């Protein structure tokens, strides 16, 4: 297996063919509700203290479960219980299918622990893949949080076009928040330790977005 640092870069790369360009991290729903370009940095922060911790904690718990030969179903259940909105769960499961499909082709053994699950969320798949590829818990949490920041920022260039240098500046400014997510979640050992923090307004935006008939992004 290749070096774990390189594999973490691969998983965090927007060029990974997992339809990442269809996702906005609910930014489109937020913009529909009136969020403007100047609000995006605080939107990033809100996700980093909320939904992103659920995702990172879930991924870390899934990695742990695979390494300890424990079942993944309780991790999946814990994630779903913390992810209130059906629209967000559905979007995550769709992304998970793409990731599972890709990794299943590249590393069939790595996705085998997922076999008992019919449609797990993305964080569970990412965690299982990280276990098989030798990524550490911190590297995994970092991939999850960094990907979330980049997903929102890339979508913002479509939805609220600005000088991309400014938007990359938002990514850089969010990096300390990414490290806080790593610190808060890398030590998660069991499903019950996954942070249970929601951002109700983001959930409401996500659900409303899923019901619109005019949108650029899947979620």
């Amino acid at each position, binding site marked *: 297996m290749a070096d774990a640092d390189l594999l973490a870069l691969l998983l965090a790369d927007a060029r990974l063919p997992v339809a990442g*360009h*269809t996702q906005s991290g609910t930014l489109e729903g937020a913009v529909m509700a009136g969020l403007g370009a100047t609000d995006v940095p605080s939107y990033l922060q809100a996700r980093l203290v909320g939904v992103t911790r659920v995702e990172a904690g879930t991924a870390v718990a899934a990695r742990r479960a695979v390494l300890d030969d424990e079942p993944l179903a309780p991790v999946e259940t814990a994630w779903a219980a913390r992810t209130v909105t059906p629209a967000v769960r559905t979007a995550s499961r769709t992304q998970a299918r793409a990731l599972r*499909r890709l990794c299943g082709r590249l590393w*069939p053994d790595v996705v085998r622990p997922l076999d008992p699950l019919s449609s797990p969320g993305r964080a569970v798949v990412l965690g299982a893949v990280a276990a098989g590829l030798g990524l550490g818990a911190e590297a995994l949490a970092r991939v999850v949080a960094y990907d979330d920041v980049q997903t929102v920022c890339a979508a913002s260039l479509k939805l609220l076009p600005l000088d991309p240098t400014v938007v990359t500046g938002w990514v850089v400014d969010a990096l300390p928040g990414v490290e806080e997510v790593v610190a808060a979640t890398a030590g998660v050992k069991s499903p019950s330790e996954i942070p249970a923090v929601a951002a109700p307004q983001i959930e409401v935006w996500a659900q409303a977005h899923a019901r619109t008939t005019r949108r*650029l992004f*899947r979620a």
Partner: protein
Amino acid sequence: MPEHHYPHDHVHRPLRLGVCGPVGTGKSSLIALLCRELSTRLSLAVVTNDIYTDEDARFLRSAGVLAEDRIRAVETGACPHTAIRDDISANLMEVEALEHDYPDLDVVLLESGGDNLTATFSPALVDAQVFVLDVAGGGDVARKGGPGIERADLLVVNKTDLAPYVGVDVARMRADAVAAREGRPVVALSRHDRESIDALLDWVLSVRSAHGHGDLVPVDPGPMAPHFHAGEHAHHH
């Protein structure tokens, strides 16, 4: 095994037929026409790639040409080109889901989001593709060329019934297209012209037959023209 691995090989799965071309040229209507004409003979399903709405999927559902669940939409994050060419995963997953849900499928039709003249399907997503132009877009478009116009498996010059109203000479536009395509097929189509519809259906059925016999090799129309090295055959990069 992962849930989305299906054991059939290339020939045994349904034909995947792409329909692409600029906005407003009649891709959705062409698919509705194919469904109306072929759904009594073949088991069909459709994946639409809408740029901004689920309008195309809703149009097809409301046309009543197929059961609603056989028509599914993919959002493309404002990247219709990417979704049919560089990262086809969202489309491939819908196609595979349809093939899984309807094991009797004969043909899956994929409608691209209306994009520009350079957008064509990856051969990893479709087995064959139709590029659609219309006479109202201007009589000179076929002559301008581009990968889809020149090298899609079929070029449809649509809405020929509108030609008198937009001052386009259909025979001339068709001749330009034939010249640009170096003999590849062209259908000048009007839904009011039965003969043209039959020509389209004949083409689709012949492609399906070639696919079923394992004779169909998906070809990339390419973002670029094929080029030659001395002493070699044409190839794409």
